[in-house]
């Protein structure tokens, strides 16, 4: 990390010993490649004279463009263009991404960093860009890869110059931020069930019309729906409905039903890619089946694979 005076001293050394700013550039760029340190992006030989000429504080930094190739998501690289990103001495500052918390966690949410945007007090979280390359008219950086607990949203960028001057948010309307996606199997506790009672004994997940129900709901964590229907007398059939309406950008990406004779509606795997799904698990319980071993009772299994923003609740 180069502090303001260290930066100037380093430039002076480069100027005196190597006599080319290009070599300075190379050295600075190499120094900040992997860590979160800042590296010079442009030639700044003029800055070494500020100690003599008394450079005046430049106007506030202004971001005019986010390079269209920029990747506004955790781990993504961004390139901001504008003016006056450096202070009079050629020192760097910080570039930050500002995000809001998920709407669903608004109640009771305490912002880590209260922030002021366009003079209006708001509560967002600042995420300083890493691996910075800094010039007076450009800043390159990467968005921290470990951002979690935020939804897709409109975000803003700001330049916090080392002399305390701050840019306005870019863009005022915000730029689209995409959260990192993660995968989970929807647990039984989070699915709405409408259980058919057509058989002599019926159970769907933790609910049953007999007692005690089979306690599988707590035993098997990879199932979203588990139906048990028993026909002691005559052949019975019905449909169990397993439904969910996910929130905060979560969607059901995969529904898999284990292949069991007389279970299901013919589909074993589908990819809905929507937040709201109802799965119809049809079943037939036959006390006198052609297939020995299935007499009168059957258990059907279905799992919902879901995907959504990392660290954000789906309900």
């Amino acid at each position: 990390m180069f502090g303001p005076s260290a930066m100037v001293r380093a430039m002076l050394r480069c100027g005196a010993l190597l006599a080319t700013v290009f070599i300075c550039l190379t050295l600075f760029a190499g120094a900040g490649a992997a860590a979160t340190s800042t590296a010079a992006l442009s030639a700044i030989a003029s800055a070494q004279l500020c100690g003599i000429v008394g450079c005046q504080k430049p106007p506030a930094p202004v971001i005019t463009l986010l390079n269209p190739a920029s990747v506004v998501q955790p781990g993504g690289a961004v390139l901001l263009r504008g003016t006056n990103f450096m202070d009079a001495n050629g020192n760097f500052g910080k570039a930050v991404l500002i995000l809001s918390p998920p709407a669903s966690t608004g109640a009771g949410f305490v912002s880590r960093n209260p922030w002021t945007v366009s003079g209006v007090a708001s509560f967002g979280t600042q995420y300083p860009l890493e691996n910075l390359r800094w010039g007076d008219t450009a800043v390159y950086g990467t968005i921290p890869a470990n951002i979690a607990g935020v939804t897709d949203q409109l975000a803003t960028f700001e330049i916090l110059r080392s002399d305390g001057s701050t840019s306005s948010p870019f863009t005022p309307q915000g730029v689209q931020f995409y959260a990192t996606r993660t995968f989970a199997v929807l647990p039984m506790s989070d699915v709405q069930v409408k259980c058919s009672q057509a058989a002599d004994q019926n159970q769907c997940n933790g609910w049953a019309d007999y007692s005690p129900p089979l306690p599988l709901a707590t035993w098997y964590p990879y199932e979203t729906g588990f139906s048990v229907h028993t026909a002691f007398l005559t052949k019975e059939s019905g449909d169990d409905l397993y439904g969910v309406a996910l929130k905060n950008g979560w969607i059901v990406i995969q529904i898999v039903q284990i292949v069991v004779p007389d279970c299901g509606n013919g589909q074993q795997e589908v990819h809905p890619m929507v937040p709201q799904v109802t799965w119809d698990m049809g079943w037939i319980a036959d006390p006198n089946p052609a297939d020995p071993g299935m007499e009168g009772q059957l258990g059907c299994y279905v799992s919902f694979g879901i995907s959504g923003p990392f660290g954000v609740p789906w309900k």
Partner: protein
Amino acid sequence: MHGRSKVLNFSAALIVSGMCAFALSAAGPAVPQATIGGPVLKIETLTKAQFRALSPNQLISYKGQVMTKAAFMAQRFAAWSKNQATMQESLQKLHAKFAAAQADLAHRQRADLAARNAKVLAELSKFQQQAALLAQSPSYVALSREAAQLVARYAVASSAEKAQLKLRASQLYNQLRQMELKGESQ
């Protein structure tokens, strides 16, 4: 993956043992012979409601066998529990499928991010090349060298010399600054 299989096996074992336990509980405690009685009902003749209303000790006949309702239900559950043991393979396949889906999602995200970041780095490279062109230009190098020498001289100069050096420093600063701004704006 191996660890997960163990967990799965364990879960399946729990399921099967649970079924067996349930089957036993469905049979209920040993029923004293004196409490078992009444007419033997043919199960095929009962309605669903009638079957449900029967006490656990009610004798029924099913395919020629006479037993209590509780014993009959236990037999059904036991048969099904045995069948469920074969579910283990299916459950393992399901688990593997979801593990693969999880890994695939992570892989696709990483690959997409890397490809898109590469485009930004290409844009950065263009900018750096422009800056390098300026830094290597003979006029900029010459002015930079003079600026460095001037700073060194200024540190040990007399008051009279400093006034002269300051004038030249101001000229150098303006020249360098203009070149830098022009270089970055290209």
